[in-house]
């Protein structure tokens, strides 16, 4: 069955009646011809055509609401529907970012409370909600580290230490901040190699970027020593909070000595991933770094009393690195995360981590005899397997992933972290039931058996999806990034 959906330009018919706005109710003003464009290539569709087009496209997609989505490092947990309703309340959705804050006390109270809650959960002195995504939070955090050293008259600290298991955003952020990356190897148990760290710790270190649990899903066994080594040489420690789901109510990074950490509201705090964003990457910092936060942040400008709530305002921290984004961050995501934390409450935080870790270890226990586990110890919220088989050398991790689609599952993360060959990184999250995990285990075991018996079944998978494997080489060589003129001229005739 051919499932190709025409694009909006192919669906367009010149002159098709579409959405109407009200007639002009004021006189025409002069409109100088020389300022005007002579053509505008936009499609013309009826509302029904638009609706069907996007509904059909949505049916070619796989979301958390379709089935199990164990994409490691992305925390694809259920996105509660009430979050969506909350963010769409007119009082939130239809407020302008530059309105007088006196008439936006609801928004400011929500943001202030979320700042406080996130600070409490992570063990930090303060939080900025401005960063728009995890990588944006990283950039903000590293610029804060840089500003801190500059401000203390220590501008020669240019080295950022990054473990080899880190997300690619860590080194990319470092370069963007004008600092240089020093890669640290991992030891045999998947921890940062302490000897290598000791060698690098000197007075040129600006900081260390550490993901904990790391991208192997393992808690750094020497985390306190790692942090102490960096602190002792005058550096600061940045925490990549991508894996915070494992730590909610279990341990606070601030208590371990982390100086900065970004949260991913779209991972840990259930805001939807949206097909690749919008994310939200608030940043928590220790007392010493409070003044460098990007602004504005929300603060109380007049204390409340028994009768009146406090008056909230937008305040710029004293030595701020500046704005990292126009306005106040992804407010719509703040509303959703607020709703989520409020729902689970104090005791619920630990429940989340407990069940995320329980589910991951349950899968690991069931699969470790079938797939090689390169760093095999109790994992946190995710773990990494090798998708390769001694008896089937021609089968790769990617083939396992594609075959999982035939079982109705979204594949795990492939080929990351880079330090594991043929990596399959699996993160089940807490919202999946035992029944779902059992079905996934069955699929993974069958696929491993099939790799030996019928490797071609894996190498040519998926077989049951609307699309087979896509030719990435052709895409990169021919580079068609826009509907082609030929299609346009057809649409115009």
């Amino acid at each position: 069955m051919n499932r190709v959906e025409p694009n909006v330009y192919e669906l367009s018919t010149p002159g098709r009646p579409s959405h109407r706005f009200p007639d002009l109710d004021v006189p025409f003003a002069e409109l100088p011809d020389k300022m005007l464009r002579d053509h505008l290539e936009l499609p013309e569709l009826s509302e029904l055509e638009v609706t069907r087009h996007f509904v059909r496209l949505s049916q070619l997609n796989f979301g958390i609401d379709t089935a199990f989505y164990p994409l490691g490092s992305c925390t694809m947990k259920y996105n509660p529907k009430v979050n969506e309703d909350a963010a769409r309340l007119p009082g939130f959705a239809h407020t302008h970012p530059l309105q007088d804050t006196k008439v936006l006390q609801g928004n400011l109270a929500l943001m202030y409370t979320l700042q406080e809650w996130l600070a409490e959960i992570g063990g930090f002195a303060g939080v900025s909600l401005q960063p728009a995504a995890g990588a944006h939070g990283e950039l903000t955090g590293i610029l804060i580290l840089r500003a801190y050293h500059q401000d203390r008259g220590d501008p020669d600290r240019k080295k950022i230490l990054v473990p080899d298991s880190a997300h690619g955003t860590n080194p990319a952020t470092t370069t963007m901040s004008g600092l240089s990356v020093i890669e640290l190897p991992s030891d045999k148990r998947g921890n940062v190699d302490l000897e290598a760290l000791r060698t690098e710790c000197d007075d040129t270190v600006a900081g260390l970027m550490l993901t904990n649990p790391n991208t192997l899903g393992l808690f750094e066994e020497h985390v306190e020593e790692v942090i102490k080594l960096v602190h002792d040489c005058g550096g600061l420690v940045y925490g990549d909070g991508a894996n915070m789901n494992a730590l909610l109510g279990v341990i606070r990074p601030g208590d371990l000595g982390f100086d900065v950490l970004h949260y991913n509201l779209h991972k840990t705090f259930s805001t939807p991933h949206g097909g690749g964003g919008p994310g939200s990457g608030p940043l928590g910092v220790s007392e010493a770094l409070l003044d460098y936060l990007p602004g504005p942040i929300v603060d109380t400008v007049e204390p409340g009393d028994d009768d009146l709530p406090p008056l909230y305002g937008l305040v710029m921290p004293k030595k701020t690195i500046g704005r990292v984004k126009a306005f106040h961050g992804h407010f719509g995501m703040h509303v959703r995360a607020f709703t989520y934390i409020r729902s689970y409450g104090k005791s619920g935080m630990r429940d989340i981590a407990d069940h995320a870790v329980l589910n991951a270890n349950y899968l690991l226990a069931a699969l470790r005899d079938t797939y090689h586990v390169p760093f095999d110890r109790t994992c946190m919220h995710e773990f990494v397997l090798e998708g390769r088989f001694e008896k089937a050398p021609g089968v790769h991790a990617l083939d396992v992933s594609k075959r999982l689609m035939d079982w109705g599952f979204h594949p795990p993360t492939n080929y990351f972290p880079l330090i594991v060959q043929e990596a399959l990184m699996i993160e089940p999250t807490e919202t999946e039931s035992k029944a779902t995990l059992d079905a996934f285990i069955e699929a993974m075991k069958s696929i491993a058996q099939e790799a030996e018996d019928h490797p071609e079944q894996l190498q040519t998978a998926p077989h049951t999806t609307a699309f087979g494997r896509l030719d990435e080489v052709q895409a990169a060589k021919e580079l068609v990034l826009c509907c082609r003129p030929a299609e346009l001229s057809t649409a115009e005739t």
Partner: protein
Amino acid sequence: MTYIPHTEAERSQMLAAIGVKSLDALYADLPADVRFPDLALPEAASEMEVMEDLQLLAEANLHVRQASCFLGAGAYNHYVPSVVDHILRRNEFYTAYTPYQPEVSQGTLQVIFEFQSLITFLTGMEVANASHYDGATSLAEAAILSLNHHRGKRTKIVLSAGIHPQYREVLRTYLQGQPLAIVGDGSLADDPASHIDENTSMVAVQYPDFFGNILDLEALGRAARDYGALLCVVANPIALGLLKPPSEFGADIVVGEGQPLGIPLSFGGPYIGFFATREEYVRNMAGRLVGETVDSRGQRGYVMTLTPREQHIRRGRATSNICTNQGLMALAVTAYLSTVGRAGLKQVAELCYHKAHYTAQAIDQLDGYELWNRDPFFHEFVVRCSRPVAEINEALLDHDIIGGYDLGQVYPELGEHMLIAVTELNYKEEIDDFVEVLNEQG
């Protein structure tokens, strides 16, 4: 409220399968002295109670549907057709992530491809990426593209003072670690063209500018070309429904805020930054790109392409650290532009233009107010008042009118100047009421 499905019995079975006695035993690797903190958070609440709390917070705000709104300055109150949000609420779209597995992500991939196409044609450029966080960060990324294009050999960025002040601020934050001169926006009298030289990597202007002016960028484009500097234009996408696209002035990069195209104000975010350029710069461009190809069965399909530019492959040598884009917001823009279409976008732009001019003329005739713009303007304009703008806005609020932006906050030379935005949502009656209250406050 919880969304965790485990029963007590299942939990026990799972712990037994793992071979541990309790959940606590899973955390043996963690430092014991700081484990299991007592968090100062509220107790859990039911969905019903949570929604009541949120309702109360939302009701503590004044929103633009309860008032007439004449405030713009980078975020605009436009009508969003109902169908757009219905499309955004399709679970398969909003609960998916980045389309790493194209066989099960053709929906997201084709939407992005269509978004790239719509932005390419709207801006008149050759290629557009799958978005940035907002207009401000897309301007910062444009500067980084220009620096990479010149291989770090040029160290000067020229900005017009007519670019949104927050955008200029964000660009400076992004580039604070690089040894650069960022000049040209010291005062309104500064002419960006006069700063361009052989060390200039990029010159950026806004179109229409922050004050609504539709400037002819022909001469600036020539000046940039003469010195080999890239010309970046920060454009308003609604205005492009009517006005000449920046490509006609020789723009090398066109960026901007996509919020006016179907995204609610939402107190400033999430919005979407668009980014279009010439094909020759495509490998220096940051962010995701989707390209057309075929699948193993010969069907046309889409994949993320040119990924070696990106952080997950190039790591420290990537064009940017950007990872997550604004996928769902790109869907909103695509759905909006598909719905309003060629005629609809032009109509919205015309409604904005004519209503803004009607408003400006009426205010210009009042005692105590004077229209400041000398150039043609689009849907935003500046009036000089004879009192502090904050005071006038207080009085307007008493009439449920959200007044314009107080320019004195960021432009010292524009104390007592108000920036007013008018869109298709402002009916003649509310414009007349606005003018009348201004008259009383003159």
